[in-house]
């Protein structure tokens, strides 16, 4: 047998996880507010990528529309935070039948964004069942293309092209932390909860069903796994995650408009999931770090003293993606596995 005994291997994994959690918990103490904000974005992307990895990495369906699902979550949070009064104050005329409320604490809108976006994802997952591979990618792409237009069309609720401004973030409950720190812990708190949810899901029956469908739909069907049910479920769960990410993003930037979630975001999300490693949760953090920091460093490379054009991040992202596909097709998670495995391989004994 290759590898450590299972319990030891699991213990090692948990220790690594605890280490990451500890680092993330103390990180804001050692950096300025701008940096803290950047790492809040890492947490937000981490959540979106977890969800996308469930869809693409585990259930094997490609989505080029996850930016749009984030957008839906963001609009839910923006609209509910403002409430009917807030929208009217900004000169909008939301239809009377919409249950908008009188404005909510932003943090409380997060679970609502999760549910609403999850339902939208489920509904979208149903027609997507008839599509696979490139056709499915195109259909999700259409969602990403149409979201800005839809947002502009229903400007009575969404604020149209001008978007919606949220009240500036503040720390609730009289806690003695600055707003950026609060947002950081809010984002990473959600990330931690959703990581555990994802961890549990992919190890449960539903996770096995997702992987089975990805590996062989016919054999899965013969085993009693319904591809239709589990593919739809993957879409629902995945977009619910994206909804939380979008909701947090709206709170973080205190503003939403149709350009907050451009097409390029959807594409970069997919690329980052691949970089992190499909079908593995441990690489997701690497994808999230890259999604936040690569564009920054690509445009202003360190130790170079010169800035590149605004197009540079896209090009660099592409080059990095190609290099990774050649060097470590399984992404960061695959690289990690490749490093760890020889270290943990026991010396073969006679009884082997």
């Amino acid at each position, binding site marked *: 047998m290759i*590898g450590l005994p*299972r319990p030891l291997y699991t213990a090692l994994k948990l220790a690594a996880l605890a280490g990451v959690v500890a680092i993330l918990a103390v990180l804001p103490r050692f950096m300025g507010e701008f940096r803290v904000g950047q790492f809040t974005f890492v947490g937000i992307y981490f959540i979106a990528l977890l969800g996308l990895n469930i869809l693409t990495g585990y259930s094997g369906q490609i989505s080029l529309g996850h930016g749009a699902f984030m957008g839906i979550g963001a609009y839910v949070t923006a609209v509910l935070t403002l409430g009917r009064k807030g929208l009217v104050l900004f000169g909008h005329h939301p239809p009377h039948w919409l249950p908008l409320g009188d404005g909510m604490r932003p943090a409380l809108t997060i679970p609502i964004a999760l549910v609403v976006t999850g339902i939208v994802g489920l509904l979208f997952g149903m027609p997507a069942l008839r599509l696979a591979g490139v056709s499915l990618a195109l259909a999700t792409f259409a969602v990403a293309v149409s979201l800005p237009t839809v947002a502009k069309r229903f400007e009575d609720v969404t604020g149209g092209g001008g978007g919606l401004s949220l009240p500036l973030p503040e720390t609730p409950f009289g806690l003695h932390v600055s707003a950026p720190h609060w947002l950081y812990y809010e984002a990473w708190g959600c990330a931690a909860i959703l990581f555990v949810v994802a961890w549990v899901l992919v190890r449960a029956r539903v996770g096995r069903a997702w992987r*089975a469908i990805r*590996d062989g739909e016919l*054999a899965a*069907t*013969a*085993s009693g796994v319904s591809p239709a049910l589990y593919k739809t479920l993957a879409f629902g769960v995945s977009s619910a995650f994206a909804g939380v990410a979008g909701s947090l993003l709206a709170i973080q930037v205190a503003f939403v408009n149709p350009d907050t979630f451009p097409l390029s975001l959807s594409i970069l999300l997919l690329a980052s999931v691949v970089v992190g490693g499909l079908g593995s949760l441990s690489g997701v953090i690497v994808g999230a770090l890259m999604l936040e920091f690569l564009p920054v460093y690509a445009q202003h490379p360190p130790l170079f003293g010169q800035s590149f054009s605004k197009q540079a991040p896209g090009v660099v992202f592409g080059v990095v993606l190609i290099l990774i596909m050649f060097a470590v097709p399984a992404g960061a998670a695959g690289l990690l596995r490749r490093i760890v495995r020889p270290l943990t391989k026991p010396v073969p004994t006679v009884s082997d």
Partner: protein
Amino acid sequence: MALLEVDQVTRRFGGIVALSDVSLELEEGTIGGLIGPNGAGKTTLFNVITRMYKADSGRVVFDGRNLLRVRPTRVIRAGVARTFQNVALFPSMTVLDNVLVGAHTRVRPFGDRTGKALARETLEALTLSPLADRVVAGLPFGTLKQIELARALVSRPRLLLLDEPAGGLNHEEVGELGGLIRRIRKDFDLTVFLVEHHMNLVMSVCDRVHVLNFGQKIAEGTPAEVRADPAVIQAYLGTDSAAA
């Protein structure tokens, strides 16, 4: 009453009649063989029984229930499990997880200790336990076929359909296969229906053999009867050779 009754099943693909009014019965606890030249419709019949293909007409009655009205994902719940001609496992998953997918309908959504125990028990019965945590991709072909068998058995089916269980196996493995099939029939209380080209295996293991040619059933009987049947000989050797 027969456990499985295929009643005048017809299936066309465009202008080709893959199955033409095929009828056959399988008694509970027996091992049935389905033979015939390439393209005779053997796998098509398996696919109709397990609802991978729709039948154009006819009935498939299993344990008093028309399977053709059962959804494809419910066939295994009804008690029919199968293996595939070219081995259809989930290559990126471990052996244990592959078998657990086979137990999908018997396992609770979360915290499935009973399912795991069932899977491990099944692996043990096929002496696959040492491989439980190995990823399937890269394992030898003969082992893959055994894992596929474990995945089918873990659902504790009443009817097991084996599509060319000896295909791709070496001489030694084929020799062991006959004993294995008889053993699992006894241990798992099964009725077995198998498609096979390997005649020695069919003749040694099957209680009854059904012969298809060009989508039609041309013979049925004990292995000895079928082997002596002129229609079967003609189907295998061809009209020209028979005339010559």
